[in-house]
């Protein structure tokens, strides 16, 4: 590069312009080649999904990898209930994404709950970050019930929740508290456990 620069300095204008055009042209060529070569099928896909679209997909997937005791459903026709307590961060998208699906032959229903409402009919409960301050109280109210509690507040699984969704480097990571699941009589598949960071409550022995 430097040697070239020396020669060019004797005729300052044209050669540098020419080399610029040359460089631009070869870069353009490489560029087109690269764009075409990179899996043309991928072209038809859309932009990266939003944080809560992915979190919603996780919620639905959890239900496939967790086993509920038989008494969690009043009868064979009762639906599978996803609950959101607090402000809805999914902006209605959870309903749109999963309400026409079924899980184990059961209809999927998404319901919004207010704090203090009876959560017993719920199977998966997403606790919105707006309820951060009432977390202990909320977790207490579902104690012993077969409800898979999920939240994306900091340290949720450590504080007694079952699955925490943690955003790291723009990716969603899972934190699971198996003791909490046990207390709720839920069986989490080993596959889901293997993909998550296992955490425990302080003083719970495991961390």
């Amino acid at each position, binding site marked *: *590069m430097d040697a*070239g*620069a020396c020669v*060019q*300095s004797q005729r300052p204008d044209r050669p*540098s312009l020419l*080399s*610029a055009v040359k*460089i*631009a042209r070869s*870069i353009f060529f490489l*560029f*087109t080649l*690269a*764009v075409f*070569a*990179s*899996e043309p099928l*991928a*072209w*038809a*896909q*859309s*932009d*990266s*999904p*939003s*944080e*809560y*679209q*992915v979190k*919603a*997909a*996780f919620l*639905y*997937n959890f239900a496939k*990898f967790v086993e509920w005791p038989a008494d969690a459903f009043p009868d064979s026709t009762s639906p599978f209930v996803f609950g959101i307590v607090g402000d809805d961060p999914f902006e209605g998208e959870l309903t749109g*994404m*999963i309400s026409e*699906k079924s899980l184990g032959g059961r209809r999927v229903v998404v319901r919004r709950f207010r704090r203090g409402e009876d959560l017993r009919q719920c199977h998966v409960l997403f606790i919105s970050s*707006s309820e*951060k*301050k009432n977390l202990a109280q909320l977790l207490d109210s579902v104690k012993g019930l077969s409800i898979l509690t999920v939240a994306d507040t*900091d340290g949720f699984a450590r504080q007694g929740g079952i699955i925490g969704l943690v*955003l*790291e*480097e*723009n*990716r*969603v*990571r*899972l934190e699971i508290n198996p003791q909490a699941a046990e207390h709720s009589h839920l069986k989490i598949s080993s*596959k*889901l456990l293997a*993909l998550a960071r296992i955490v425990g409550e*302080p003083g719970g022995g495991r961390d």
Partner: protein
Amino acid sequence: MTDLITTFTARRIFICVVFVYWVCSPILGQSSKPDLTESSLETLLNMEVTSASRKQGKFLETSAAIFVISREDIRRSGLTSIPELLRMVPGLQVAHIDANKWAITARGSNGRFANKLLVLMDGRSVYTPLFSGVYWDVQDVLLEDIERIEVIRGPGASVWGANAVNGVINIITRVAKDTQGGLFSVGAGSHERGFASVRYGARAGSKGYYRIFAKYFDRGPFELPSGQDAQDQWHFGRVGLRADWELSPEDTLTLDAGLYGGRAGVTTTLVTSFSPPFEQTLVGQAHVSGGHVLARWKRTVSKQSNFALQLYYDRTDRSEFIQGEHRHTLDFDFTQQLAWGNHHDLVWGLGFRYTTDQTQPRFFAALIPASRQDQVWSGFVQDEIRLFSKRLHLTLGSKFEHNGYTGFEVQPSARALWSFTPHHAIWGAISRAVRTPSRADQDLRLILGAFPTPTGPPTVITAFGDPAFRSEDLLAYELGYRLNPDQRISLDLATFYNQYDDLRAFRPEVPFLALDPPPPHIVVPLRLVNGMRGQTYGAELAGNLILTQRWQLSPGLTFVRQLLRAAPGTNSTLSEANEGDNPVWQAHMRSFVDLPHQVEWDLTLHLVGPLAAQDTPRYARLDMRLGWRPTETLDLCVVLQNLADPRHQEFNAFPQFASSTQVRRSAYAKFTWSF
């Protein structure tokens, strides 16, 4: 000849096909939205998400010309310093003066001592009251730790206060929780002779997180027009700490501290005596060092109300040919946010800043008095009103400030934004902002030139500050339009018309004979006065096009024109020269391509128009980065910079007290490992 025509036609057809494919692909893309719920857990875990802060809602809701440099923008730019990163922002003018000095401004009036741009790092003002500008060489952090850089063009004075005249730059680093674990990066190349950084983050007790980092770089010299080394190489070391504690669900405490030191080479020609040869070319180094410590406590009182209390101390030490300065700054800041009713969002705040300096006089430049203490008291109030089911946002506010130079300053602003569909918004604003006098405006004595006269004593042209110097005044009108038809396309157009008054100009005064320092000489005084007015108008366009899942384009366009008129009695040649220190046109294009196997290929092109007032022709800057992330923890990249020409000059204004040197083609390679 036939050959030529065939090649030509073939190329044309090829270009047409490519074009049609590009244009159609986003449309093709709309039909198939993948059902995420059917994705496997592994796929979901690997899926990169767009976080809430980048949501389009925010983009459409801001009634100001804002541009955000994201973490991804920083990583994929291949750039290594904060001033260089600002190049990607349409509406800013960024130029290297020499290897370690920059001229940076928004909307006109550029120079090393450009004084209408306010810069904040994590809430700490890095603007020096000495000349009301920014020492860009010392503004640095670990670039990997930057969450985003918000650049607001146009007056931001109603919230940020004086000197946010033409823009505000907010550099925001990541919270310690997001930078846990280790990071090690090292690289070397031709201009980047060597750099290394290391960061480590861990828990601080049961309620908090911290990180510490250290970085060092050694950058090579640029070139003089003659082809020689410009001796403007520089090297810097820096350490920093940040900790965040969540003391309770309502309270967070942040601690941020840093220390730096370095040497920056400079070649400059200055008047060193009043007898021949008068001027001397000096080659040497600026010695700079400094540090800061900042604490911030934030409390969420309720869903409707929160407040923040911030205190920082900052120290700057510089010693260079043109000046020497030690400065201590203490700053206190309180802000409260209150939502009342369904329609109002009120923010108000109080601030106090104390700054004290000790300057060293030089032969050709001195501040009189050499030491000065200043206090600035300020308050602001702003109400954002949402009407018509949040379609209309009105923002009314004002800053009130009392400073030691000019007394009270009131800087009101009114902004309105109307989103007539969820995808379009139009906004407008009228604001007043002032640039308060700097130390230099009032206390300067600076020798601009000295030459012999055929008979009699030599003549010395000297600029003098004026204790009566008032604030420079701006009344700004802005109008903008945003379009965000779907997630893949966004377009942001901002236009402005700025009316300046009381701008700084030079007024020649009656020459006098001075005996000291010897030999006797005639002083031709040029007084700094509020003697210029003028208009600046322009338009800025920023776009973002996600063409395919693997290819994104970010085009930009900047147009700015400045017309200044010096008042009768002032030296108009010298005063109005400033209007030609900006390129009228700039065009930017950034392209990001994700190739298979985690390979990234990024190109950036800037076309910058000539600087009419200077001997600076137009230039093109082309950068290329090739990156590879073989695993999630490794990142390797090769960066080629300034490919378009072997060398070019970007800025050459008087008086910058440094030789304008030429940017060279360069390359470097970098390795980053996170653990």
